[in-house]
């Protein structure tokens, strides 16, 4: 009896210590976790709930089951928006990564004025996207600086062949600064002895980059690709500003988020807008998952 009681007490105190430790741990994360649930998990779940209703400004109108999803499947505008967004992502992600990596490698060299170049390359990422877009509207205007230099008269943002590519170029340039920072951090964490060994083996700079630097940056590639793809799939502000919110000309700048915005704010169909949001969430989620599987496995091997 006494023994049993003793072990029980011991177990209790041991459990108590563990419990206390766990409680302290939770106490530390409870606030951020609370915010996370309140501002991320709850809205996602709630958006899914809303997406199954016809939902107006003042709330529920009627339950429509999965009709919104069926409508979305047959929605021409959504298809155009999704197409534009995917094309945009397919071009901008590699562009951003290449330019970001190039800038990182450049500013990682021991060159004169290195702090200046670091700041200069990072600067576009600091400025507000709205302000940069507004400046580009002037630069790419039919009478703007770019046309003066090219001696042409092309309204870049008003022509459906050039509007989206112009936004792509603009975004590759502005976001490459942030990506440069990620790469720079990763570059500096590569141990110097690897390079020394390569130098002893008489590897040239290009070979060193291809065989050593690039493969060793794999975790950075994964991280940057994920961040960059998510950012691209959510493209909105540049398209909104350039087209005045219409997604024109000829639907060329209509992105998924811009279409979602229009559906909510202009068309007042909040249930349908939530449906678009849920589908976009799933698209991003699947992309990230696939990437994690691909790169994650590679990392282990």
């Amino acid at each position, binding site marked *: 009896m006494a023994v049993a009681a003793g072990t029980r007490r011991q177990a209790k105190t041991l459990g108590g210590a563990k419990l206390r430790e766990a409680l302290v741990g939770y106490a530390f994360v409870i606030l951020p976790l609370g915010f996370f649930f309140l501002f991320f998990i709850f809205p996602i779940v709630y958006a899914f709930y809303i997406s199954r209703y016809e939902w107006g*400004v003042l709330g529920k109108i009627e339950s429509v089951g999965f009709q919104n999803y069926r409508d979305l499947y047959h929605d021409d*505008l959504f298809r155009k928006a999704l197409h534009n967004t995917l094309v945009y992502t397919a071009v901008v992600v590699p562009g951003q990564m290449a330019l970001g990596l190039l800038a990182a490698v450049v500013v990682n060299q021991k060159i004169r004025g290195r702090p200046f170049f670091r700041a200069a390359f990072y600067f576009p990422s600091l400025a507000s996207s709205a302000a940069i877009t507004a400046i580009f509207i002037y630069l790419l205007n039919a009478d703007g600086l770019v046309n003066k230099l090219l001696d042409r008269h092309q*309204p870049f943002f008003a022509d459906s062949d050039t509007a989206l590519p112009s936004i792509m170029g603009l975004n590759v340039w502005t976001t490459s600064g942030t990506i440069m920072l990620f790469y720079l951090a990763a570059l500096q964490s590569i141990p110097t002895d690897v390079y020394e060994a390569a130098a002893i083996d008489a590897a040239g700079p290009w070979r060193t980059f291809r065989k050593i630097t690039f493969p060793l940056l794999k975790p950075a590639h994964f991280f940057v690709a994920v961040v960059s793809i998510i950012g691209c799939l959510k493209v909105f502000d540049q398209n909104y500003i350039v087209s005045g919110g219409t997604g024109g000309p000829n639907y060329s700048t209509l992105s998924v988020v811009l279409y979602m915005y229009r559906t909510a704010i202009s068309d007042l169909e909040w249930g349908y807008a939530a449906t678009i949001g849920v589908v976009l969430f799933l698209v991003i989620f699947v992309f990230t998952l696939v990437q994690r599987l691909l790169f994650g496995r590679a990392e282990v091997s």
Partner: protein
Amino acid sequence: MRRRVMRVGLVCLALIVAAAAGVASHGGGKAAAAPKAAEVSGNITLAGWTSGGSTEGQLLKQTLAGFAKKYPKIKVTYTALDPYQQNMLAKFAARKPADVFYVDSNDFPDWAKQGLLEPLDSYIAKYHFSTKPFFPRLLSAFKYQGKTYGFPKGFSPLSMEINTAMLAKVNGKVPTTWADLRLLAQRMKAAGVPAGGRPICFQPEWARLLAFVYENKGALLNASKTRAVVNSPAVREAVNFYVGMINSGLAGTQQQLGAGWCGEAFGKEKAAITFEGNWIMPFMAEQFPNVKYRVYRMVRNKQRATLSFTVSYSIAKSSKNKAAAWTLLTYLTGKQGMATWTSKGLELPSRKDVKVRVGGRTAYLRDAAVGRPWQFAPGFSKVMTVANNELTAVIEGKQTVNGMLAKIQEAANDALR
């Protein structure tokens, strides 16, 4: 017992007197449009997109000062919202909109349908508010399913602005028909007027094109707004004219002319002729005071017509102080309030009994009589997304006019269903 009888009698008497007074005021025309100044009080809020610092903002301040003088017990707080629509929707959803606010005629059908606005018919009856002085077409822009949800605070129709120096340069006459307009543009183009630009500026959007469609006796919807009628020969002809002018180089879009809108292209003298509303006048005075121009009536084709842009003052359905809100509404859209608000001609008065006191607006006022409000039915924002994108595709030659009209027809009928 006697006292009670007396009291009942007094009440009856009071009722009879009140009723008589009501009848008298109704017949006599001296209607008590709003509750008496002493009766209503409280704090109410007003929301709009007019920013406080602008000329418009000064006028609004002046108008509200007039109101404060007349109704000292009502305290009005004005908030400018930017972007207006998004902010208003957030406030509606939070059940905390302003008591009185602007409603764009284009947003109106959706806002009324969603039950955001207070119907005004019972107030009109109760306070014998006369809606007769309002231009009927503008007033009807704020009716939904037979009920009135707002009174127009003013309006601006599209008319034709011409650069007088450029007109003189080619010895041209002011065009009155589409044919005249084309001839004049051809003459200007041949003479290289304006240098580095195009004779006309046309915005590639239905909010301009539709005026020409109406002139050609076409329309987007039938009169009862139950069916799309956009896929018709009359509309096709108007679109062909509009797009044809652009593609033959007689007209240019604002983007082709390196401007943000046609008013800017007109001010920069990249276009000699444009079709805008009277909002262009303060813009020209501020930005391009040296450009000489005049405003003429819209060119006509099968009939005279134009588009009018109008905005109402409406009351929130969830307003807590509707008596005070109604008092403010009827002051702002009443003779006195509107006279102050429109005194600089930034908007034209939507009441016939308010005179325009600034010059140069004759053409707008005359076109106003044939102006139709820029408004369709609930759910038409999406139709316009399609319509405007298709129009840019037609201008680029990537879509046929028939293809565009079929798409718009389909989208419109979807929205009406």
